[in-house]
């Protein structure tokens, strides 16, 4: 099961569920083998009602349960590993962010950005950081306590938006995100 941005699974208010969704771990178009461990086709999609009905960016979170796939015909977590989920923490934290912004390398290679995420505004509980990650980086994990040796950590937000000044924002992970994750856990 994957956690991602709500708008990666549903286009929001007045919109529809996204079609033909696949997950390609470690995708890199510059390698002879683009999809090192092949790919995983989506089986079930889930998002917050507040995203689906109101495009509420505080709830821009989605979940994807995939079919078994990849090189070994098993789950994503048994193929490439999985992160923990961090929730009910502060909005300010050390973060490592991964994604495929199309403005860097044409979106053909994974990029990372790290630093301190800060509180987005007094009007909501989101976090922000100036990574200048634009189109294509959506849904990438904002990882707290990232371990550079084993590539694992705790997902504490997901890439949601970019503004004209290159500031990226992500939703706050509270108990409702845990509940959604548990609901997605039962989607298979």
């Amino acid at each position, binding site marked *: 099961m*994957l956690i*991602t*941005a709500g*708008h*990666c699974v549903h286009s929001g208010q007045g*919109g*529809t*569920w*996204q*079609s*033909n*969704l696949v997950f*390609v771990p470690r995708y890199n178009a510059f390698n002879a083998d683009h999809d090192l461990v092949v790919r995983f*086709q989506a*089986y*079930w*999609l*889930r998002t*917050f*009602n*507040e995203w689906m009905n109101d495009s509420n*960016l505080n709830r*821009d979170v989605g979940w994807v349960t995939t079919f078994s796939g990849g090189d070994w015909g098993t789950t994503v977590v048994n193929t*490439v590993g999985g*992160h923990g989920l961090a929730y009910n923490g502060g909005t300010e934290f050390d973060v490592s962010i991964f*994604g*495929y912004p*199309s*403005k860097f390398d*044409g*979106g053909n*290679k994974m*990029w*990372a*950005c790290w*630093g301190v995420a800060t509180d987005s505004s007094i009007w909501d509980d989101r976090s922000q950081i100036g*990574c200048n*990650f634009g*189109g*294509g980086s*959506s*849904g*990438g994990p904002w990882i707290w306590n990232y371990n*550079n040796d084993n*590539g*694992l950590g705790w997902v504490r937000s*997901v*890439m*949601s*938006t*970019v*503004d*004209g000044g290159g500031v*990226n*924002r992500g939703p706050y992970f509270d108990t409702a995100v845990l*509940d*959604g994750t548990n*609901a*997605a856990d039962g*989607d298979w």
Partner: protein
Amino acid sequence: MLTRRSPRSAALLLVGVVVALSACGSTAESGSDDDTTGTQAPNASSSPGALPVRDDLVNLQVVPWRTWRAVDNRTLEVIVTAGPTDCYGAEPEVVESEAAVRVRVRVGLQPHAAGKECPAIALESVVPVRLAAPLGTRKVEHLT
């Protein structure tokens, strides 16, 4: 400190894959609870949206187009990867000769979107390109 790098250690990447917006599609929604709703992942053919063509775009950047098709004698459509069509627009440039039509596309933010947030998704979008003369048998090439 804030820097960018190419990651040394590959993480389990929870990435929003590039998906085309489905123009329409029927979905049977089920699995609702108080806060979230789930559905079986739809597989449907989808047609890309069109980036509005305008000349007042902000932060223009050349974006390589991938494929083209002729809509009619004097209109081409090229495919690019760009942000949502309600935030971004395109400014195509065309240089025509007897032998070839050369096309370059620049993509930028619509003025109304320059000061606000846009979803950081990448989508396949079409850009209409008007020709001064009928395409005929001329080649379509990248303008560099």
